């Protein structure tokens, strides 16, 4: 009887997977239901990058975003062989999300500074997801638009604070 009971309610105490937990933290996937997060998880690709391996290079055409499950990724540009680090990203952080909207070139290089597990969600995946589940696709696009709007507002504020530097 106990075995039957445990079998019937085996999912009640089931731990949420790391991937799902990380996905829920990402602003691009905010306000999505468990079912929708599960759908997105099915479309994501787990990739392992060794220390020093390049995720993508600057000026390469972008195809989508990467989410860090574990490890560290350095985002940098190079001018005349001089490395200019823009950000060091850790667990739960993401990069390259604007490539979900267009195939414009990457603005910086991303490289794993230690062995890292990444979750890739690319534009073809978003297109397929939108086709299969338009509601989820719309929510993601709406979240992306919100992220863009916040960034644009910040840039406008910064520009309005320094009008003399523009000349």
């Amino acid at each position: 009887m106990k075995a039957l009971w445990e079998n019937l309610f085996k999912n009640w105490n089931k731990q949420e997977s790391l991937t799902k937990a990380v996905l829920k933290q990402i602003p691009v996937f905010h306000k999505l239901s468990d079912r929708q997060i599960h759908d997105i998880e099915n479309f994501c690709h787990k990739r392992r990058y060794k220390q020093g391996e390049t995720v993508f290079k600057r000026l390469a055409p972008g195809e989508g975003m990467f989410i860090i499950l574990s490890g560290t990724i350095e985002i940098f540009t190079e001018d005349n062989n001089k490395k200019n680090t823009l950000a060091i990203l850790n667990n739960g952080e993401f990069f390259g999300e604007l490539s979900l909207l267009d195939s414009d070139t990457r603005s910086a290089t991303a490289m794993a500074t230690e062995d890292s597990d990444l979750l890739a969600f690319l534009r073809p995946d978003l297109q397929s997801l939108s086709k299969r589940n338009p509601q989820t696709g719309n929510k993601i696009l709406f979240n992306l638009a919100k992220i863009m709007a916040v960034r644009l507002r910040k840039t406008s504020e910064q520009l309005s604070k320094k009008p003399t530097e523009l000349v």
Partner: protein
Amino acid sequence: MTPQNQSIDRFYTLVLIIISFWALFFIWPYISSMVIILVFAFLFTTILLPGVDALERKIKSRLLSTFLVMGGVLILLFGFLSGFASGMFQQSSEFYYRLTQENYVNELNDLYQRTILSIPGISNIDDFEKPQLVKKIQVFFSGFMQQILSAAKSGMNFIFFTAMTLVFSFIILNEYHHFRSALVSIIPNKYFEVGLRIIHNIERQMSKYLTGQFLAASSVAVLSFMGLLILNLYGANITLIVFISIIAGLSNLIPMVGPLVGMVPAILISIMNNLGSEAALSHLMFNIIPSPFFVFDIIIMFIIVQQIDNNLITPILVGESVGLHPMVVMISLFIGGVVLGPLGMLFAIPTAGIMKVVIQEIIFLVRYAHLL
């Protein structure tokens, strides 16, 4: 990697490719049937995938969606094949029975005499014996029946082939997204983004092409049905028009050759049904052009259907689905026909479309190779 190491690496890659092709050449005869089955299953999957995905969204079960869609297709396929086979068998039996009737023999001989007389230069040849013609037709038909029996034997192979294709289609449809993920997971990190892009573009190209072709084939079938219905209103007496229309629609999938295949059963059935009818024999198309047994009416009707399809329906429904130059289409059809016969002609265009996508992506890859 030093330039010397790079050269060694390329040399080994080249050797590996040559060995792979050499091995493939030897094992091809053993695996060719399985490869063809898998190709068919893949095409079938591409056609049914949107339906299964849409149903899965509604009923939240992949297995049940696949089962329902495949079941529906099987019922339609079985219904069509059994209906067409019984219809054709009945048609042939009736015709064979009528051939054995005495008055029919006279009518046939009369028809032959009149045909001979109407052809200048042949009318004076007097080597025609009355019973000979009917005997020839009877021999032809008894041979035809034997051919049907032998065709039934090879039909068993066809059933096995179809069953295997359906089983593979079911598995691929049910596990499609897992198979896709597994395929993506084996792509090296360096080519990950571009690899996924190629897979996505090939899928999109195939889906667009097959959906477009399916819609175009359906519209040809509907137009043919309407055309045959109109001809029947003018007394053409063509039976099995639903099946003829479906055959016309399906044969339309093979460009250039297909439309001709579609009109053959219509002409044959018209001749079978109208043989002995004076009105059908002396029928005039538009009251001007002699068209015995409505043969020219049928040909003109199918040409009109093809023109509507080529100039109106296909450009709207299919659009530039594959975007291949007509010259490339013809060359692909020729190569496909030489390599695999009618099957090759069926696969020629989608294969050329996939090759186009791959070549485009290779050009893209070469352009951005230094950034990978």
